[in-house]
């Protein structure tokens, strides 16, 4: 597979975000902020309802990046850095889809820019992963 600037990394959809999944994520990550777990607290805090942990969606974005590495048989690369910016909230019932584009290629590294969108096509998370040869 030839790495080229502009190469499109096909969007992949993840399962619908549920309260049960966020509870499991809270246990695994140690982030028990009640805005991710309690509808009443979330609404009192001025939010539309329970929202997903930002890092939950970032985790899906990183997973898409690793899947690209695997499906492209680029096993000689490892992730050097990972950046995410949270653009909009992900609510219960939302379905995140993550795709991307190769942004930069050098002899020893490349950068994959990623976007997570919800089922309405709204941008929720921007990501950028830099990979370098081992």
């Amino acid at each position, binding site marked *: 597979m030839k790495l080229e600037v502009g190469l499109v990394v096909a969007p992949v959809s*993840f*399962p619908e975000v549920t309260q049960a*999944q966020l509870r*499991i*994520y809270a*246990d*695994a*990550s*140690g*982030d028990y*902020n*009640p*805005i991710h777990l309690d509808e009443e*607290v*979330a609404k*009192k*805090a*001025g939010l539309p309802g329970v929202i997903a*942990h*930002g*890092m*939950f969606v*970032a*985790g*899906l974005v*990183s*997973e898409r*990046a*690793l899947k690209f590495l695997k499906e492209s048989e680029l096993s000689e690369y*490892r*992730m*050097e*850095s*990972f*950046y*995410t*910016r*949270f653009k909009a*909230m992900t609510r219960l019932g939302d379905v995140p889809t993550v795709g991307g584009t190769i942004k930069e290629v050098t002899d020893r590294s490349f950068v994959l820019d990623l976007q997570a969108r919800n089922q309405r096509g709204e941008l929720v998370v921007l990501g950028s*992963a830099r990979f370098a040869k081992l």
Partner: protein
Amino acid sequence: MSHPNVGASAGPFRDQITSEKVRMFCQSLGMPERNTLPPTYLTVFRKGEFELFQKLGIPLSQILHTDQTYEFLVPIQIGDEVEFKTEVTQVLEKAKMQFLSFETEFKVENRAVAKAISTIVVRGL
């Protein structure tokens, strides 16, 4: 002049990465199980940030994560005991919101292995 909270720090803390914790983390993201650390696993080590929110009187329900950067210097392995320390590096106030940046340095056996930079916004001050 920088904000008085810049420089506030928490830690160092120590935590061992076990295959059970990594398995739970992968499962929580619906990822296949693997024997390497998922990139965002470092979020498990936000203890310093949570301690600082408490120390600075910031209620968790008022914060939203805006940015996260991880730099991986040396691969961290399952079984490693990670030492980490978190510091407030920037505080910006605009339009009744406060933006806080934290830097966390990770070490294994005294060697720097990764760095995390988180920015959060405190809404409705």
